Structures are given as C-alpha cells and as structure tokens.
C-alpha cells in the first residue's frame, strides 16, 4: 500500500494542509467548554451581562473559524484523494496494457477489472477519510484529556482511567466482530452461489423435478446465514449500551470528585461543567475513530491488491534495435516447445514445420491438444520455452512486437466486438480503411448480409461485447475486422465454430480467392474445414502426430483418419 503513495507526490501541499486545517478546527472546538465555564464563573456568578454577551459572541466566532477551517480541510483532502485515485487508475490501466498473454492468464482479467474499479474507489475513500478524520479523532480525545488536566489535574485522572477502558471496549467489540462479518459474507456467498447456479440450471432442475430439494437446500443455507447475522448482531449490539454506561459512570465519578474539589475551594462550579463537557466529547470521537480504522483497513487491503498488480512485470522483453520491417510471409517452427507458466508439462512439444508464403495451413486436434497455443506463438503472444520460431526468416524475439503484429491478423476463438458502430469495430483492424475496403472485407467474411439488414448499415450500434448480435454474426464480423487489415498472415483460431457448414465452406472459399499471397492458418475441430489446406498439422497432446496433405494423412496418420471418419462415417463407405 505504501508504495502506492508515490502517486501522492503531486499532492504534498494538499496532504499537509488538509490535516492542518482539521487540527485548527479541533482547537477551536476544544475551547468551547472553557468559555462556558467562564460564562458560569465570571458572567453568571459576577452578574456580568457584558461579559456574557462578549463570550457568546466569541462562541459564534469560534464556530465560524471552525467552519472555515473544516471547509479548507475537506477541500484539500478531496482534491488529494481524488487526484491520487485518478493517477493510480490511469497508471494501472497503462500497466495492464503492457502485460503479456502469460500474465493476463495468471492474473485473470476479472481480477484486473475489480482492481481497476472497486479497489481504487475504496482506496480513494480511504485516503479522503484519512486526511479528513484520522487526525481529528485523536486530536479531540487527547485534546480533551489535556484540557481536562489544565482544568484540574486530580479530576482529570478519571479521563486517564476512562479513555483506555473505552478504547478496549470499542476496539475489542470491533476486533471480535470483524472476523464474524467475514463469516457472514461467506454465508452470503453460499446463498448467492446457490441462487445463481439454480437459475442457470433451471431446466435441469425442472427436468429432474428436484425443485423442492433445491428450496430445502436454500432454506438451510439461508437459515445458517441468518443465525450468523443474529449472532454478530448480538455482539455489536453491546457497543452502544456498554459505552453509554462507562461514560456515564465516569461522569458520576467526575461530579463526585468535582464536588469534593469545589468543597475545598480548589476549583469552581464552572470548572466542573467544563470537565463534564470534555467527557461527553470523547465518546463520540472514539466511536468515529473505530469506524474509520475499519475503513482504512479495507483501503489498505485494496491498496495492497492494486500494488500487487503494479508489481507484475511483463516477461517479454523487446530487443534494442528490434527489426521493424521485413517480409513476414514465411514461417518456420524449429523444435519449438512451450510450457505455460505454472504448468507441469509442456503444452507444445518439439514442433517443427515450415510454411511458405501464400500457403494455407490447417491445424486440427482435440481440445487441449495445443492448437491455439501454436498459432498464438506466431504474433508472439507467448514465447517459446525451447526452440526457435522464425517469421520471414527472422527470430520472433528479434522482431519489434508492434511491427510484427501489424503484419498478422488474428481472429480469436472468442468472437469479441466492442461497444460502438460496426464501422468503428472493423476499423480496429486498420484505421485508414475506406468504406469500400470495409465492404469488401465484409463480403469475403460472408458478413455483408448482416450489415445490409441493419437500417444504419455501417453505423449500426453494437452493444458492449457485441451482445446484440448472434454468435455466428459476431464471428463473421471479427473475421472482417481481421481481413480489413490486409495482413500477410491470417490466423483463424477455430473462428467458424458457430457457423453452419454451408456458410463455413463459402467463407473458406472466399478467403482462398481473395487473399492471394496471404499465409492463412485455419484452426478447427472439423475435418471439413482443414481438408483442403496445403498442409495439415495434426496435434495430439501437444505433439505434432502428423503433417501433410489430406490424402497423405489419411493414409499415414491414425489420429487424423480417426477424426475424419468419426465425422464422415458412412459417407466414405458410399
């Protein structure tokens, strides 16, 4: 957390002035009981009306000064906190942009989103509250103590007794209830989990007619949650009554001591009133302080989580004088193996093959056989752990990453589009593309009819994550987005899975016709998608068990013919 404070740098002035003005406010607040004591002792006892007027005016004046210092304090605190959070957010977003696929895999994007949003908000609130309040409460508590001593040292001893007892009670109850609140949270998580799972499995539950059992399970979990809540409630319910009793017992003691001191003439009646007032101020502030500490604890935890993201360093390094321009058409894998971070075994094992410019390569194999891994290495999303990968004759690690990726277009498995118009989405591939370019890419991608059916054509708005389009429509648009880039290498990573066979084959045909000189990789589980490729690579458990054309593989590669026959069983017999 403290490392995050580097982002406070520009706000040094604010972070000093904030607490300073807060302290000023406290000082004036602490003067009030003394003034009242004087009103009693001098004004009332001495029947001095002018003095009473003067002192009352002083009270108003102090109130005003207090108000203005608070305003200043709040302003500086808000400015520092908000500015700080804003800087952290920007830096974090930039940092996330620099992470490689490996790091994104390890951390998980949903975690990153939480860090960017709720954690930063929590930290902002924490900084704000700290600057505003963290000094106020101790100032008041100890200020009241000191003021009490200036009034009468002996009576003030009660303060010395009460403050620790109160602190023990207030903080003790909090310490006991915090872990219990965690238990409440986990109880709630169980209820949420069941609710969510039940909604997504509604069909299965009803098909098996187990509704009553689900309700029973829910009631049980819900009941456990309620019992925990009530238990925690009973403990926190002690806070108010206990502190109330303690502070009032102290008042009783204070008055009794005060009475003795007045009897012997050491202090005045007004002084007793002042002591009583100081005692009342302490309680409120201690409770505020305890709440504040909880809040700050949460913020520190959030801060640490944010800092841990900053500490993730990208494992991919750029060479100096990296190569920017070269022809990227040819690809050569030389004994390439890849082991994902934290994985026990290699995901790719000893892959060797080469591709000439303009060739179409099919990659086929079961789930987890390493198909996506293989193509993801070409744009250097992952680095090989062994062996080397040459693109256009140059080792991929020698390439300037951005220049390399300029030459490659990937259509990922998950068809993701972004909020914005269709045009904006396609322009991701190439920001200088004209509408004609876009239409021709759409045509090749078999996506023209999607656009033509929309009233606004290219200006049709796509919602977040493209959720107002069907899976097949999204896939075709993502293909168009890649094609508009006019890349030297096109990678289709199982990107026609949501298309029916007819559209799929029309798509492959169109790509083959319109992409002269483009090297194309087609990853698929369907034999029909890859069987016409110049070269088919059959992957099984990370190993290339067959490389060759359809006919060669059918004759030599068991796994390939197994896949093929399972999908085309009787047809072949006919």
């Amino acid at each position, binding site marked *: 957390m403290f490392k995050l404070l580097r982002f406070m740098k520009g706000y040094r002035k604010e972070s000093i002035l904030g607490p300073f003005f807060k302290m000023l406010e406290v000082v004036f607040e602490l003067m009030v009981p003394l003034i009242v004591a004087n009103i*009693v002792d001098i004004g009332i006892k001495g029947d001095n009306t002018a003095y009473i007027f003067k002192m009352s005016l002083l009270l108003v004046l102090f109130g005003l000064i207090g108000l203005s210092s608070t305003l200043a304090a709040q302003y500086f605190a808000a400015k520092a906190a908000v500015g700080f959070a*804003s800087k952290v957010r920007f830096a974090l977003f930039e940092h996330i942009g620099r992470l490689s696929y490996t790091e994104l895999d390890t951390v998980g994007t949903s975690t990153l989103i939480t860090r960017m949003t709720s954690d930063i908000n929590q930290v902002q609130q924490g900084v704000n509250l700290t600057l505003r309040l963290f000094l106020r409460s101790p100032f008041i508590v100890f200020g009241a103590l000191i003021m009490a001593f200036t009034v009468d040292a002996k009576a003030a001893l009660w303060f010395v007794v009460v403050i620790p007892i109160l602190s023990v009670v207030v903080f003790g109850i909090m310490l006991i209830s915090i872990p219990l609140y965690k238990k409440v949270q986990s109880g709630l998580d169980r209820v949420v989990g069941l609710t969510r799972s039940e909604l997504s499995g509604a069909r299965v539950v009803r098909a098996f007619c187990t509704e009553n059992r689900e309700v029973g399970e829910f009631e049980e979990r819900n009941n456990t949650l309620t019992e925990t809540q009530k238990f925690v409630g009973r403990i926190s319910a002690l806070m108010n009554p206990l502190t109330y009793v303690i502070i009032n017992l102290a008042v009783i003691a204070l008055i009794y001591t005060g009475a003795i001191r007045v009897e012997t003439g050491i202090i005045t009646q007004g002084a007793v009133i002042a002591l009583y007032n100081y005692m009342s101020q302490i309680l409120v502030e201690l409770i505020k302080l305890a709440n504040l500490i909880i809040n700050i604890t949460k913020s520190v935890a959030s801060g640490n989580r944010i800092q841990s993201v900053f500490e993730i360093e990208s494992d991919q390094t750029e060479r100096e004088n990296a190569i920017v321009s070269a022809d990227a058409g040819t690809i050569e894998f030389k004994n390439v193996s890849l082991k994902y971070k934290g994985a026990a075994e290699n995901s790719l094992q000893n892959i060797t093959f080469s591709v000439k410019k303009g060739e179409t390569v099919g990659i086929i194999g079961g789930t987890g056989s390493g198909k996506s891994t293989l193509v993801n290495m070409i744009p250097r999303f992952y680095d090989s752990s062994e062996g080397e990968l040459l693109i256009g004759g140059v080792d991929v690690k020698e390439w300037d990453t951005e220049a390399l990726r300029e030459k490659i277009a990937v259509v990922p498995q998950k068809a993701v589009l972004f909020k914005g118009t269709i045009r904006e989405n396609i322009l991701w591939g190439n920001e200088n593309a004209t509408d004609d370019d876009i239409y021709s890419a759409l045509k090749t991608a078999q996506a023209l009819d999607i656009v033509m059916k929309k009233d606004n054509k290219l200006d049709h708005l796509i919602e977040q*994550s493209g959720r107002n389009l069907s*899976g097949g429509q999204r896939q075709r648009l993502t293909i168009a987005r890649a094609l508009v880039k006019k890349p030297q290498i096109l990678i289709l990573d199982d990107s026609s899975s949501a298309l029916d066979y007819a559209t799929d084959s029309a798509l492959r045909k169109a790509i083959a016709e319109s992409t002269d000189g483009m090297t194309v990789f087609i990853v698929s589980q369907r034999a029909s998608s890859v069987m016409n490729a110049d070269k088919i690579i059959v992957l099984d458990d990370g190993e290339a068990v067959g490389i060759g054309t359809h006919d060669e593989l059918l004759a030599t590669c068991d796994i390939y013919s197994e896949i093929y026959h399972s999908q085309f069983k009787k047809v072949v017999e006919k």
Partner: protein
Amino acid sequence: MSKPSKKGVFSKIMRYIGRYKYLLALSVLFAAVSAILTLLVPVFIGDAIDLIVSKGKVDFAGIGSILLKIGVVISVTAILQWLMNIFNNRITFNVVRDIRNEAFKRTQILPLSYIDTHPHGETVSRIIADVDQFADGLLMGLTQLFTGVITILGTLVFMLLIDVRITLVVVLLTPLSMLVAKFITTRTYSMFQKQSEIRGEQTGFIEEMVGNQKVVKAFSHEDENLEKFGEINDQLEKCTLKATFFSSLTNPGTRFVNSLVYAGVALVGALLAANGAITVGALTCFLSYANQYAKPFNEISGVITEFNNALVCANRVFELIEQQPEIPDDVNATELNDVYGKVDLDSVYFSYTPEQKLIENLNLSVKPGMRVAIVGPTGCGKTTLINLLMRFYDVTGGEISVDGKPILTLTRKSLRKNYGMVLQETWLCEGTVRDNIAFGKPDATDEEIVAAAKAAHAHSFIKRLENGYNTVLGEDGGNLSQGQKQLLCIARVMLCLPPMLILDEATSSIDTRTEQRIQKAFSTMMEGRTSFIVAHRLSTIMEADIILVMKDGNIIEQGSHDELIEKNGFYAKMYESQFI
C-alpha cells in the same frame, strides 16, 4: 410496469414484519422508555451541579442520592437499549430470511420464459443485494426512527418544563441545520448523478477492454485505448472532486448551525441564570440538550432517505415474488405412467413473442423407439422444440401428446420424469460426483450409481479423481473438463433411464476421444427409447429414423437421410457443403 404506491409496498413489508409483532411491540416500548431515561440524565446532572455551588457550599448527601439515581437510570437504559438492539436484529434478519425464502421459492415455479428473458445477474441481485439494502434500511428505521422521534418530543417537553424562553431559542434555530443539510444534498444530488454516470461509462470501458485485453493486444490497440481512458478518467476526476467536496460539507454545515444554537442557549441561558431565573445546573442541562437536539433530526432525515431507498429495493424483490408463476397443472391432470414413447405434434404453433412468429403448423408423428434427429442452422428453433416437448414452454396453438394423451392434461412432473435430458450446457450442482449422478434419484444405492457411471463411460475417469465418487465439485463442475462434465450429465440420466430421451449432441468443445466415448454412451442409452437428438454429427444424423430439417422455426424437410438426399433440397445442400 406501473409504479406501485409506497403505501402498497409498505403494507407488504408489514405483512412480513407482522409475524414478529410481539417483538416489535417490545422493541418500540423499550425504545420509548430508554429514550426518555436518556433525557433524564442531563436533568439529574444539572441538579447535581446546582448542589456544587462553591467552596464550603456543597451538599454531599444530596449529590450522593442524585448520583445513585443516575446510576440506576443508566443501568436500566443500557439494558433496555441492548435488548432493543437484539430484538431489532432478530426482526430484521428474520424478515430478510423470510423474504429471501419466498423469493427463491418463486424462482422455482416461475415460467422458464421469465428465467430465460431476465438476466440471471439481475434476479440474483434482487434476491441478494436488494434484500440486503432493504435490511439496512429496515434496521436503521427500527433503531433510529422511533428513538429519534421520542427523543425530539421528550427533549421538547423537558426543555419546556425547565424554561420556555431558552426552549424557543433551541426550537427556532435547530431547523436551520436541517435546511443546511437539505440545501447541500439537493445541490449535490446532480453532481453524484453525473459522477455515477461517468463512473458507469468508465467501468463499462474497463470491463470491455481489460476483459478482452488479448484482443486489444492482438490489434495493438493499447495506445488508442489509453488515450480514450485518459479522457474519461479526467472527466471522472473533475466531477468526483466536485461531488466529494460538496457532499462533505453537510457535517461541517450542520455542526456550525449547532454551534450557533449552542451560543444562543449559552447567551440567553446565562443572562437568565444571572438574574436567577434558572439555575446553573439547568443551564448545563440545556447546553447538553442543545448539543444533541439536532442529532435526531439529522438522523431521521438520514433514515428517511435510507428508508425510501429500502422501499424501492423491497419493491424490486416483491416484483419478483409476485411474478406470475407457471400456470399450475390442471386440477384433473393425470400422471403419465408406463410410457411407450409415442409422441405426436398436431399443428403446433409457437412463438416467444407475438410479433415474431417462430413455429407454425408443425406436424410430426413419432413411433415408440424411433430416433429423431433435428438439424438446421443456429437459431432455427431446435431448442424451442425441446422446450415444447418438456413443457418448459407451452404451445400457443395445436397440441402435443404422448401415447395419445395431450401433455396439457398431464402433470408437468410426471411428463418431465419420463424424459431423460442431456443438454449442451452441462450444468452440475455443487456437491460430490455421487450427488450429481444421483441428482434425479437421491435414494440410489452405490451399486446403482457405479453401474450408471459405467454405462455412461464415466466410471474410469471418476475413479482417477482424487476422491473418486466423493470428489466435491465446485460451482458449475469445478475442474472437470467439458467432456467429463458431459459424461456426468449422461450418467445422471442413465441412473433414471426414462423411456424417452432428449439429447443435445454437443461436440463443439469436446475432444475426439471423449466424444467417441460420449457417442457410445448415447447409443447405449438410446437403445429402444424414443429419442430426440439435436444433431451436429453426420453419423448420428444418418443413423436416425427420421431427420427434421429446421430453418427459421419451420420444419422445412423431414424424412430419412436417403429420402432427403433424393429430394435435393436444403438438407442435400448442407450435406454437400461439407465436401467443398
């Protein structure tokens, strides 16, 4: 949906609270007594101070008895407060539990169309977040509203009993603090709205871009994103600063008004005391009242905002609870037993929304034991057909019957029990592997479960799991692969082995080896059973007795593979496209 009156929501809430009316009555009583006792303490302290006049003029006996009284009063107050808190807790959490149970029960009898058309996250948030928010409001209302009102009234009475003139000062000046608070909140409301708007925009952007960071990187779009993010971020900074600062003015503002009241009381009170109209003790008592008088007002306005909020949330839960459930089974509905497996669809019409027609005049006759393959492009209505067969949705026209009995005259339970269903989404429940297999038959013996798993070709992988059949699966199957999950779903059906089957042949995310095992499991299961298979694989399609080719909700062709190829229509075209 029309906006329901606050009163309506309130009376619904009262129905739930009504179950705890004795607790509520006690809580209110204790609140009243403890509020009044709390107000007595400053009076006693004032009295005590009056007995401490000056050197040699201290009445120790009097002070002693007053202090004793204070001791008793605070002890009683503390006990009452504690009990009241406990009662309030109990009422709130019990009410919350009751409402949640009710809401969850409702989700079990809602028509599937509700579940399909409402995002699950939204329903979850109604049952969880809204109920929580409501609980907060209710608890705050219970603890603070009543106490606040009693405190205000009590203070007024006590002050009037001591001195009318000073009371006037307090009563006239205090409303100022509420005005200040109100002024600030109304001014800041729009700022907060702006803030949450921009924050929403930013969160959306973050979710989209960070969530799809890999795509962003694939297109080297990091710099453009950063620039756009910076713009939103700057906007957010500006309006957050405004909103944070202005909203933080409420406390200092009311505190200042309070100090005005304090000064006013000190002035008037001291002048009166100097004249001997009131005692110094009475002044002290007034000062402590003045200090606290504004507090319940501010609390109450807080409670009211919170409570309004709670009503809105409660209303969202009630919307769910009052949602029209599935039309219950006909009173004369009969159980479907000893099924042969003859299924007939007679001029069936169906659409999810009246504007968009889907299934029109669908006729189909399936003999017992037939295999029906349903093929067609995505979104053509394959799933809809399953929905109708299982009565997840009811037909809008025509009739579906099993063994000649119209399904609308059968109980849903018995109809569904006669179908075994394996869907593409492999849903598993939280629990052990055993629990999952025994999902439809919880009293199954271990032997039966193992036999089902073996028949589903799942036994071998289950054995290899760390705890075998006792392996606990997390939410949605945990660490199992898609294929393994599918095998468990098959085993689940295998255990019950109903006379009819509905299978969504999921092949897209399963590797070839597992797929072959699943295929074997499917074949075992289909032996002699009427089966509806949403088919993706050619071999399944060709083995079917009848193929339904669907497009845009209609069955455009039906017949055996050879017949359809002969026909040279849509099916033939789909079939050939595989060989291009």
